[in-house]
């Protein structure tokens, strides 16, 4: 027995790796015309891991205070070897992660993968989406540049308009009445401690539920073809991850993430302030609602409407438990899904039009 084999046997005796590998070999993935969508979950996980890795590297140099944050990011981008690459990959990967997460969510929605018994898989996935958006919102402020500063001011103002708890939320998010260095420190805490802890827990639950229930075969698909998770599906997953890595590298090299100008709280807000693209559809919706609707304040009505729509979206597995597999309401939910896709796309595009700014 070679020394390598002896080491393997030593690890096997203590960890039981073969049992895990055996589980992977026995786990089967349905193979049909919609299988492609299954790779989105793995790609999201890959991008999340990229975020964790690049985020840890950024932590080595980042300083979370209003007088040092911008300079430290500038230092990372100009003086730290490959710092520009790490920061650009972190920023691009964050955006790709949210984009892939939306694709994953809509693919699960349209393939009705939320139906019984995967309700909690859907709910935990939605929680992960909210957490990732929270990562995006808190991380956007950390370079402490002008755009981030004013976008955070607008974003937290929206939270402040929520009835009853709005003012508390605004103060909780900002750490006071205004966006200050205190807000930056607070957002840093959310970004590197609170959200990662929550995300790890919810991600663990989500992966456990995916493992427990396996991949859902969409209603109407009769194919009984399957492939083993290990190695066939995992190898395909790896191809997707490599493609994502290539895209990230190209984006980072050709379109390095801009740093902009350092935030000046006393300067007037520049024109065209808007939040990150994945919040734009909500921002644009609020902008288009008239000041007063039927005696109610338009902004509050909009926030309540978006919150109610989000809640209903999370509750979809309970509203459409069969997903059309047993007949019933699923066509209606498919239509609602397409309306949501079109609405988000149109509103996001409108926010980027010159007149929408």
């Amino acid at each position, binding site marked *: 027995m070679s020394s390598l084999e002896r080491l393997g046997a030593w690890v096997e005796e203590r960890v039981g790796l073969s049992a895990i590998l055996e589980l992977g070999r026995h786990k089967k993935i349905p193979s049909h015309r919609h299988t492609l969508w299954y790779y989105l979950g793995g790609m999201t996980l890959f991008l999340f891991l990229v975020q964790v890795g690049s985020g840890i590297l950024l932590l080595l140099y980042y300083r979370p205070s209003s007088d040092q944050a911008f300079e430290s990011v500038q230092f990372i981008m*100009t003086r730290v070897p490959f710092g520009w690459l790490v920061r650009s990959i972190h920023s691009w990967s964050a955006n790709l992660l949210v984009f892939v997460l939306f694709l994953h969510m809509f693919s699960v929605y349209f393939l009705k993968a939320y139906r019984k018994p995967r309700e909690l898989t859907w709910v935990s996935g939605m929680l992960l989406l909210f957490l990732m958006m929270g990562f995006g919102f808190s991380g956007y402020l950390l370079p402490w540049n002008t755009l981030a500063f004013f976008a955070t001011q607008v974003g937290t103002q929206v939270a402040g308009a929520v009835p009853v708890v709005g003012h508390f939320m605004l103060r909780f998010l900002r750490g006071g009445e205004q966006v200050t260095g205190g807000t930056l420190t607070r957002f840093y805490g959310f970004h590197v401690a609170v959200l990662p802890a929550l995300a790890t827990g919810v991600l663990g639950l989500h992966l456990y539920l995916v493992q427990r229930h396996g991949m859902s075969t969409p209603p109407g698909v009769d194919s009984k073809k399957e492939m083993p998770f290990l190695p*066939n599906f995992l*190898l*395909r997953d790896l191809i997707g991850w490599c*493609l994502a890595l290539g895209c990230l*590298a*190209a984006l980072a*090299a050709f379109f*390095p993430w801009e740093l902009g100008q350092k935030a000046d709280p006393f300067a007037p807000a520049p024109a065209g302030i808007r939040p990150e693209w994945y919040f734009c559809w909500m921002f644009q919706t609020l902008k288009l609602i008239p000041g007063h609707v039927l005696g109610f304040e338009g902004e509050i009505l909009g926030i309540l409407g978006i919150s109610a729509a989000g809640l209903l979206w999370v509750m979809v597995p309970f509203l459409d438990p069969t997903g059309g597999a047993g007949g019933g309401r699923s066509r209606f939910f498919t239509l609602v899904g397409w309306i949501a896709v079109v609405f988000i796309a149109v509103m996001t595009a409108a926010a980027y039009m010159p007149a929408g700014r």
Partner: protein
Amino acid sequence: MRDSLFHCLARTTLAAVAAVIIALAGPPASAAEPPSTPRGPGPLETSCVTCHQQLDGAALEPTKHTGDDIHFLKGLSCHDCHGGNPAAGADGDPDAAHDVKKGWTGKPSRLQIPEFCAKCHADATFMKRFNPQARTDEYSEYRTSVHGKRNAGGDTRPAVCVDCHGVHGIRAVGDTRSSVHPSNLADTCAKCHANPETMRPYGIRTDQFALYKTSVHARALYENGDTSAPTCNDCHGSHGAVPPGVDHVSNVCGSCHSREATMFREIEKKKHLDLEPCIQCLVCHGNHAVKQPTDDMIGVGPASTCTGCHGEGDAGYKAAARMAEDLGRLSGRLGEAAAILEKAERAGVEVGPDKFALQKAHDDLVEAKVLVHSFDIDKFVGVSTEGIKVAEEGISAGNRAFDELSYRRLGLSLSLLVILAVIAALAMKIRRLER
């Protein structure tokens, strides 16, 4: 009829005598006392307005301004300036209203107007009721002005208060509709100073307004809306308007351009008196038609102002040539550095610190242009050389940014090749597994 004629004659004589007495009494202490407080009733309720509204022409005119005149708006009324007894006039008796015993002065002559206005405007106690920071030196300043001196000498043509501020319908200086608001002041001065008929007796040129309109000062005021930009009174004074003497021009310009003025004074300390005719601002920049200074003004080229005093071969000529050369080089290198860093930034390289460092070269360029006024070539070269060095460092930083960009793209190409190779290997592995 004879009674009526006599009565009219007597009234006119009395009024004229009263006016002469008031005028001879001397301003402002012996003029009629200003009202102790803004008096009621308000202007619209007095018999002055109600009667004059029934009249025509000049007698009607004052009643049209009860809504926009600063005096009316502050609660003052006709009789606060003109005296008289409007209460008695309420019975319809104009003679009782125009009672000389009650201080009625009628319309003051142009020689009387400065004192007429000064009875309130030179009274600090009275003026502070309306504005704690109100000036009360306008009258004394006026008397030092060419306008005021000629007026005191009996010349009725030079400007008095009402020529600039208006008679009735006077607005606050800060009101953009006021004839003395910075945006209107030059037009107000030009009413007389651009009028050949008015200026001919005094032998004063009338092209100042037209020249001023072409100046960088007028552009700042009229095109950029910068009301701090100089107009007539900023150089000549307002109430104490005088043409600045040649000796004082640098002080006048220096009230805004303080660094250049300081440098002039340094030269004076060195007793370079032989250069004095050359070192006044207007020799190079002109007076009313001050243009935006250009680099071409320095040096020995055709647009140079230096060659007006310096001839080929003298030290000043050489210094001017060196200044022009350095300024051109600094401007050129600075522009080059800014362009390459801008291009690198657009390509995605973070050059914020390099752009910040380049500010020093920009500051040096501004400083060098100011130092031209010191006529000290050593000081000038010290700053310009430093600026050129910083600008060249900026160009190097821009070049390094492009080298970095090439390096990144090479790295990306190699990484993509590796990634493609891994993808191909994975695809082959899957194919072999599923064969």
